């Protein structure tokens, strides 16, 4: 009994010491960004972003310049983010949902409307990427990055120019060579596009046809994975991958044999957007962050780090010419005009897409 008490006491002491150290580190960190640590809530900006989706040096310079301390948390899917914010108990000032999720959060009254008079950088954005149907007049969101869904190929196994459209993936010679990104909406969407249908279809026969067609892709599929797809492709594990443009950029920087194609038969154009969830605690800091990110020099720097395409026209002009004119990242108007953004389908149809995808995953071999 005595031993037990001693042990418990020892654990308590350790916990207290660790707690003290944590407070000390927070204090140090606050001081290093020139921040008085007393009114915590007013000096902290909590950001909820995708993993590896900002240049860390920008966060540092933002803290230095504005004196806010950034609390940075990450998620790996729109749905995970939605669930966490919806469950409550969080106090995110900034979140980064994709376009269909902006629409959903807006409908569910989870977003704070933006006061445009406080946004100083709006004029920098390309009007072509503003006022999109998912958020008319950008009442709730400012675009952060945009990109496409496409095909990555490795020129050790595939000849350049061999892949032009989604339908090329179904060729029998690519047996066991394709990696797919584990996302119902994207894989169902690309199959729909290969059939010339809308990626937002609510037509049962179209969807059933797509599911049937997708099942016939299984012999060519090597694996269905998430973020690991980048590592695998960089290591020549597979010849082809269906993935987002930014992931592709990262793989290509690690393996010069990889190339990215935006298929010419349609597909998805997506936006990730900065929004202020209703959980916002520090509006001033959130506006400061949005303005900071819209500065051409910062947006350009961030775009070069992340690899996705920036909707910021002024920043785009600052990018190296090779990036600016690269059709993989900034596709020509003809290709762009065929791409669609995802709409929020509502629970019933989302369920249907997901069930079809789950069923596809179950078709082994």
């Amino acid at each position, binding site marked *: 009994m005595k031993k037990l008490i001693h042990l418990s006491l020892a654990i308590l002491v350790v916990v207290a010491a660790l707690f003290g150290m944590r407070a000390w580190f927070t204090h140090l960190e606050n001081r290093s960004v020139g921040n008085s640590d007393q009114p915590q809530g007013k000096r902290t900006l909590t950001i909820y972003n995708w993993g590896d989706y900002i240049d860390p040096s920008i966060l540092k310079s933002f803290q230095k310049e504005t004196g806010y301390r950034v609390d940075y948390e990450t998620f790996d899917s729109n749905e995970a983010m939605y669930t966490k914010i919806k469950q409550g108990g969080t106090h995110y000032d900034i979140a980064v949902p994709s376009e269909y999720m902006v629409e959903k959060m807006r409908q569910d009254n989870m977003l704070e409307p933006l006061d445009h008079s406080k946004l100083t950088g709006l004029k920098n954005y390309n009007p072509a990427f503003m006022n999109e149907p998912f958020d008319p007049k950008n009442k709730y969101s400012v675009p952060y990055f945009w990109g496409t869904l496409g095909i990555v190929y490795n020129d050790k196994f595939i000849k350049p120019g061999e892949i032009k459209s989604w339908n090329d993936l179904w060729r029998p010679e690519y047996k066991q060579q394709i990696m797919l990104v584990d996302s119902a909406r994207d894989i169902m969407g690309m199959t729909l596009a290969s059939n010339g249908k809308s990626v937002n279809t609510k037509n049962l026969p179209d969807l059933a046809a797509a599911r049937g067609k997708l099942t016939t892709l299984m012999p060519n599929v090597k694996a269905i*994975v998430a973020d690991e797809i980048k590592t695998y492709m960089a290591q020549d*594990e597979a010849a082809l991958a269906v993935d987002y443009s930014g992931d592709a950029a990262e793989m290509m920087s690690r393996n010069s044999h990889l190339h990215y194609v935006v298929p010419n038969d349609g597909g998805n154009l997506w936006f990730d957007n900065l929004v202020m969830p209703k959980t916002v605690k520090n509006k001033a800091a959130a506006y400061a962050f949005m303005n900071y990110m819209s500065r051409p020099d910062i947006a350009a720097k961030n775009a070069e780090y992340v690899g996705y395409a920036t909707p910021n026209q002024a920043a785009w002009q600052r990018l190296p010419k090779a990036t600016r004119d690269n059709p993989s990242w900034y596709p020509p108007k003809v290709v762009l005009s065929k791409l669609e953004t995802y709409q929020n389908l509502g629970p019933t149809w989302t369920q249907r897409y997901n069930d079809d995808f789950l069923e596809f*995953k179950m078709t082994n071999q």
Partner: protein
Amino acid sequence: MTKKRTINFSVPYYLWLVLFVIAPVILLIFESFTNLHGQFTLANYKSYFGSGTYLRMTFNSVFFAFIVTLITLAISYPMAFIMSRLKHAQFWLMLVILPTWVNLLLKAYAFIGLFAQKGTINDFLTFVGIGPQQIMFTNGAFMAVAAYLEIPFMIMPIFNSLVEMDQSLVNAARDLGATKWQTVWRVIVPLSMNGVRAGVQAVFIPTLSLFMITRLIGGNRVITLGTAIEEHFMVTQNWGMGSTIGVVLIVAMAITMYVTRDRKGGGKA
């Protein structure tokens, strides 16, 4: 101690049970009877037992969990047996436990390094002239990794039961003329059945719902119930269906516990 005192001491324990064991299970069962719009429905169960997809997935999960348990047991029993007879048994046990201190994801990534097209194993195969083989994303790779992860949880209970065994019974068997094999088979194995049971429970049940490994190593070519639950809670947001699968898993666990329970009279431990 009076009776009243005992009751007072047990209050926190019961409170804990009600709050963190019983209440969540009730919520889970309740949730499994609601649809996307929050109304009461039996549809989740109907679609679970009515669709080939879910039944096949259940069958798959049980099948894989069963094989993984079998592999684990086949490796662990002899290992625990040998270890229990070694001089520095505690040291060897320590070596077995050590990998459990390493994060699961790190171990999975280490296996990617071994199994990949340009991984260590394929380098070796190329070197001996066989040429690179597809190892990642196969059922074999998934089962190997799952078994590797679970082995410590199987060895520990078996090892303990072997060490705690009354050594004089083994001596008696030898004295009474049993051969070495007879002693092992008729005395030691039955006496260590408690450890085996505990090990099987500790391996089979978590393997049923493994989900990170199915994606990382199995490339989603192996789908378990765990994958489906993750999908329904995180992606589809169909908590009703996710809960239904959760309830099925709980039932499966209950069945496992029942089948592997300590039968009185049987092996008379």
